[in-house]
């Protein structure tokens, strides 16, 4: 087995090592991809949250973000395309003591899995969704998706996307999410704080993280490196807590409104007093 990280006595142990499957590194993500940054922030949030790691389960769908589950040293599931939220719904309702985190991409969550996303929000299932939005289908080679801005080029919209994209915070809020935030990978500390809050929130919490895909989206839309995309985020992101989610749509250029948009209370499933479902012991 190809072990990259080592823990010999001369080396200090990395604080996140217990939560990563180090024997699976290096990861498959491209240079300049934001997923490593987001994974690091999530693991630090997990530590910060104080949740018992053995009771936290990460569920991914398919795609570049879908591979996150495989690198996390928790009970983790890499499921079918779009079904991560439905799988997580079953897991959480069957075993309410778990903290269930769905870590997946915009295509997985909003296109093929859109129905499960909105219904889990409507039911206010007690789970956290980390939606990594890179504005295209990266794993299959850069096709446009449900979040691709109008006029953006992709391998299936070479003349520019003609479709109207989903504004993910508005979709989550309209579905019934009790916590909705958005950050870019250039705002690591804010992102980490939001993920911690989401993990500790009871009910359906949703954090969108806008993330570079220099290999496809960036390269085809005049931001050819991860650094170019990060510079764009840094110069164009504004923080507006409490902004109306309907007014935070992202275009191919211009401002990216970030912040915590929604933080409310609503009855959630499974409610207090849910039975143990006769778990097999």
């Amino acid at each position: 087995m190809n072990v990259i990280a080592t823990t010999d006595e001369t080396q200090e142990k990395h604080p996140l090592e217990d939560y990563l499957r180090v024997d699976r590194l290096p990861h498959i993500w491209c240079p300049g991809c934001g997923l490593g940054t987001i994974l690091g922030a999530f693991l630090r949030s997990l530590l910060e949250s104080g949740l018992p790691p053995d009771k936290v389960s990460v569920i991914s769908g398919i795609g570049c973000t879908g591979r996150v589950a495989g690198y996390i040293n928790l009970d983790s599931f890499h499921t079918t395309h779009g079904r991560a939220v439905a799988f997580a719904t079953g897991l959480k309702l069957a075993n309410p003591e778990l903290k269930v985190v769905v870590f997946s991409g915009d295509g997985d969550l909003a296109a093929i899995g859109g129905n499960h996303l909105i219904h889990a929000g409507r039911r206010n299932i007690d789970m956290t969704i980390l939606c990594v939005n890179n504005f295209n289908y990266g794993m299959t080679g850069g096709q446009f998706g449900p979040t691709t801005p109008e006029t953006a080029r992709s391998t299936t919209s070479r003349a520019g996307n003609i479709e109207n994209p989903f504004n993910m915070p508005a979709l989550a809020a309209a579905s019934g999410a009790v916590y909705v935030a958005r950050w870019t990978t250039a705002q690591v500390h804010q992102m980490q704080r939001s993920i911690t809050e989401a993990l500790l929130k009871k009910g359906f919490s949703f954090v969108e993280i806008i993330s570079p895909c220099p290999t496809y989206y960036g390269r085809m839309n005049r931001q050819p490196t991860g650094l170019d995309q990060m510079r764009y985020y840094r110069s164009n992101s504004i923080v507006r807590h409490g902004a109306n989610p309907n007014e935070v749509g992202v275009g191919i250029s211009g401002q990216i409104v970030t912040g915590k948009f929604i933080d409310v209370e609503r009855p959630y499933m499974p409610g207090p007093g849910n039975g143990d479902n006769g778990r097999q012991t």
Partner: protein
Amino acid sequence: MSDRGHLEGEHFMSGDDACAEGAISAGCRFFAGYPITPATEIAERMSDRLPEVDGTYIQMEDELGSMAAVVGASCGGVKAMTATSGPGFSLMMENIGLGIMLETPCVVVNVQRAGPSTGLPTMVAQGDMMQARWGSHGCYSIIAVSPDSPQEVYDLTIKAFNLAERFRLPVLVMTDAAVGHMYEKVVIPPLSEIELVPRRRPNVPPEEYWPYMPDDDLVPPMANTGEGYRFHATGLTHDEQGYPEMTAEAQDRLVRRLVEKVERYRDEIIEVEEDSIEGSEVVVCTYGITARVAMIAVERARQEGIRVGMLRLITIWPFPQDRISEIARQVKAFVVPEINYGQISLEVERSAAGRAGTILVPHMGGDVHNPETILEAIRQAVK
């Protein structure tokens, strides 16, 4: 498990209700489904009964989500099921495949109605028998059973849960609209008399646990989520540790095991019912509601002096090919009535391998066969 909520005694109930009661008796405590005729009564009864036994009923947004939730619930350590009919069964194929790949015990009930597409929603067919075997993509083995009465729906639903835990895979109960909506006497024994197969638990400490390291019988012990084993499970081709491995060698190792863990134990799994096969010149081979219709034809043929046997398939998959191959050495032909245009008849023909003929008696669905058509085929067989 306590007897609380267990409906011991004699009841007059439908096949669909018997299915729900079989699930409750088997320890099923999670149901995810989507309303669909003629399976809806199973969901309705589960929504009443599960809260009485501290279980969970969730009505999902579609059958894609229902099946995904069932696989998720079972990974959480709970016996889980769903019930549907043809259109929903098609949607469930995706995550039945996930259940096969993650080796997740669960039960899927298909109360078959006539298709294709929306077809005849309230009326009987047996058109999904090959879909049950091959409907999800890729190569795998599956277990499917087919009951012919509400009592047998009860019994086989329990058996399905036991097989699911024993072999770690989704088990299919292939019933139909006629059996599902038929009311008959159902005897529910005391819970203490029902044999239940528990989940095969890891016998090593968490740090040594590999989720797909099989026992000698090719079935790996199963840790539940949240117990500290910190396992990874993926629908990608994976090694014994559960890690993705994108090689032909890993694919060969995994898929062979997924197939052989079932095929090697065919004799343990397969159940058939035989009537007067010894000395017969023709055997009617069928399953589900069609077996009951065929018995009328078999009895009339016997009155005509024809030596006719009956082979009722209770297990459909894995297919009882060895027994059919044996019988083929002594009979002229098999008569195979089924409510489709020839599915299980193809398997009978394959198993008979030319040693005996196979006469399909197709029926497109909407109602059951006229026994006269089956009788005519029996007469043809002995000519």
